[in-house]
């Protein structure tokens, strides 16, 4: 299928240019795998950074540790329409993206080599998206990413001190103060965090405590879709076609429910550059107060 910028390997009709799909959803009963007619499909990365075959072979190298680059890298093709953005997906199709994340997490959790799956989306060249066709990705890793272990350790430390989940406390305070809430429904709240790393950064959190994304039921998937769609449309109204990334943070694979950790999405518009100071210090310079950003987003006409 012809695409705006030339040939697009993710478009329907070009299924032979991708590896065979590991998952697809279709409204058509007679849909055949790896053929057009899908609403969403998930394929392994054709040129993956990590390989799924082999064993980890963990070993020490002096004071360093090393292991083979084992993992899974998959691409979730969110729509057959090359020009359709994630933000513009109608709810009945956006929910399929969230369900696809769940289905792949469930499948990858069966592989004992993997400890964590990072689900992420890049939109816009500045945010790292190399192709216009709307897609997100996931990478299954044999180790816990440092940022996740840091969140888990920090939240455990808070829990030991307060015997409460820090994310639950954040949700309670933000709803009570209503200074940084962008949107909420019965089951989810969207906030600009107290110390955002980028202007218009948003977090979407389930109101009911849960450490794993996989704990959601159908009502939660519907409510997540509603609030996520609203937040993305508000962001797009404030800053049309802004490049962004979003990530899903949740408990490690196969972990027991954690009282101290709370899964959530983080949405990061790409409006500022991470340069030497930010990279070297871990500090971020944000010119827009979170309360102002939340106000802009809440007042955006959608």
């Amino acid at each position, binding site marked *: 299928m*012809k695409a705006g*910028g030339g*040939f*697009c390997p993710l478009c329907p009709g070009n299924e032979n240019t991708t590896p065979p799909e590991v998952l697809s959803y279709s409204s058509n009963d007679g849909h055949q795998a790896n053929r057009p007619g899908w609403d969403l499909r998930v394929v392994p990365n054709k*040129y993956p950074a990590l390989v799924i075959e082999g064993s980890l072979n963990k070993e020490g190298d002096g004071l360093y540790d090393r292991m083979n680059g084992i993992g899974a890298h998959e691409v979730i093709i969110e729509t057959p329409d090359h020009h359709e953005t994630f933000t513009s997906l109608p709810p009945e199709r956006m929910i399929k993206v969230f369900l696809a994340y769940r289905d792949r997490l469930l499948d990858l959790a069966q592989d004992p080599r993997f400890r964590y799956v990072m689900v992420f989306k890049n939109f816009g060249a500045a945010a790292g998206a*190399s192709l216009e066709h709307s897609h997100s990705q996931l990478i299954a890793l044999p180790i816990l990413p440092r940022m996740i272990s840091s969140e888990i350790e920090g939240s455990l430390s808070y829990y030991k001190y307060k015997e409460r989940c820090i994310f639950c406390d954040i949700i309670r305070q933000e709803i009570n103060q209503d200074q940084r809430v962008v949107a909420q429904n019965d089951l989810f709240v969207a906030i600009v965090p107290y110390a955002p790393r980028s202007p218009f950064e948003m977090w979407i959190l389930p109101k009911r405590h849960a450490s794993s994304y996989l704990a959601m039921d159908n009502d939660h998937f519907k409510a997540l879709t509603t609030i996520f769609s609203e937040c993305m449309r508000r962001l797009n109204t404030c800053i049309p076609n802004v490049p962004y990334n979003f990530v899903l943070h949740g408990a490690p694979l196969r972990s027991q429910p954690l009282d101290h950790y709370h899964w959530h999405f983080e949405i990061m518009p790409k409006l500022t550059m991470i340069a030497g100071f930010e990279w070297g210090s871990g500090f971020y310079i944000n010119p827009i107060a979170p309360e102002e950003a939340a106000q802009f987003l809440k007042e955006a006409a959608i």
Partner: protein
Amino acid sequence: MKKILLVDDEDSIHLLYREELEEEGYEVHSALSGEEALAQLKIIAPDLVILDINMPGINGIDALRQIKEINPALPVILSSAYQEFKQDLATWASDEYIVKSSNLDELKAAVKKHLA
């Protein structure tokens, strides 16, 4: 005799690759840029394209998308000194991605496979 269009902005690559590929029995044509490759496509009608990525003007990935737009069935092997371009999903339009090396065995095997 099968025709290969070799696209790279470096003369040294053409010198090395042409000799080795001609020894394998292929007819090798050269293009020094993505623009030149697109112009030569219709004239030469190659059976396979070996395409560098990092080139001035149209880079290899943009050239790849345009080549596949013109002829989706034409095998294109991306040949780059860098692994990092593999993160660009647009490279999926290619039939193979070979990281450049002084040992051309992997490239020759890929050529043989896609011309079989």
